[in-house]
């Protein structure tokens, strides 16, 4: 099972400042291990963030995103105490959803 994300969501004026750390190997499928065998691709392809039933971020990712990715964005239309739900899905159909309360 994958490790939880670290999600911080803080009100900055009328915007929510979101910072997310994800735990993922983000294997490109181009790398070979010590034995010369290609390490199979395994990376996040979709990230979505939802708040109050509204999708506030939807991102298509590829193999060029770093290992243990860090994602930061801002959005409007939420208030302190609202819940922010973040989900990622990877190439091996692995998925993880975590929630944070906006502070």
């Amino acid at each position, binding site marked *: 099972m994958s*490790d*939880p994300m*670290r999600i*911080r969501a803080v009100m900055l004026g009328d915007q929510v400042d979101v*910072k997310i*750390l*994800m*735990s993922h*190997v*983000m*294997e490109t499928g181009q790398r070979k291990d010590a034995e010369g065998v290609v390490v199979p691709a395994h990376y996040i392809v979709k990230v979505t963030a939802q708040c109050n039933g509204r999708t506030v971020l939807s991102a298509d990712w590829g193999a060029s995103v*770093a*290992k*243990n990715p*860090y994602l*930061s964005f801002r959005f409007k239309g939420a208030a302190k105490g609202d819940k922010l739900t973040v989900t990622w899905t990877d190439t091996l159909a692995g998925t993880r959803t975590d929630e944070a309360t906006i502070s």
Partner: protein
Amino acid sequence: MTRRARALAGALGALCGLGLTTLQAAPSTEDAIAEYHAMFGDENPAELWQIRGEALWHEKRGPRHVDMSGCDLGLGAGVIAGAYAQLPRWFEDTQQVQDLETRLVTCMTTLQGLSREEVLKIKFGDGEKKSELEALTAYVVTAAKGAEIRLPMQHPAERAAYALGQGVFYYRAGPHDFACATCHGETGKRIRLQTLPKLTEPAGAQNAYTHWPAYRVSQGELRTMEWRLQDCFRQQRLPQLKFGSEVAIGLTMFLAKTAEGGVMAAPSIKR
């Protein structure tokens, strides 16, 4: 060069009326790392290890089905705040000078009843192969953030460990006839673009010791002091440094003692 740096270089070139060809001086590796660090702000992927470690600490595990709250890291059972800043130290129960990692192994084996072999199966993580020891280390180290390094240095064995570490630090060996001091005994030295701290005096040792363990960007892993030391040995082409050995703990003791007075800022981010 990052895209942003390239754009900046381009903008500067246009502003100064210079061609891009005259602006070949790339920012130094340290600048690039500083820029990368700045993008993270206060965030550090090391937190992913810390979170995992915190969960592991509180989880009832092993044949005895207990958590780690009975683990004494030197400041009493279950006390982790600031504990890392006072390690390595002498432990009465094991009759040994231990660093954090070997002490965690002691707790996992004696309290939880896990086998030493099992605990040490993955000492250093690699992608999907995750190390519980590293996660626990990250958790305990984070709880020492802001604590001043202050070693007890009361027990003769602690002084002996320091002396051993100091001896090894200056001991030249291996095909390159290298000692730790060869690279870390003078200021202003570097390997390729990495500036090397002078670890024989407080300023250099504090700067280095207070920033380990660290998230190593180039490896995408959190690396501990035990890892750092065994990698130094590898770079010197010395025999493999045994995990938790007297030499490993002696060197840690020597570095920690030299860094005394420094304020813990680990886990940090390294290149």
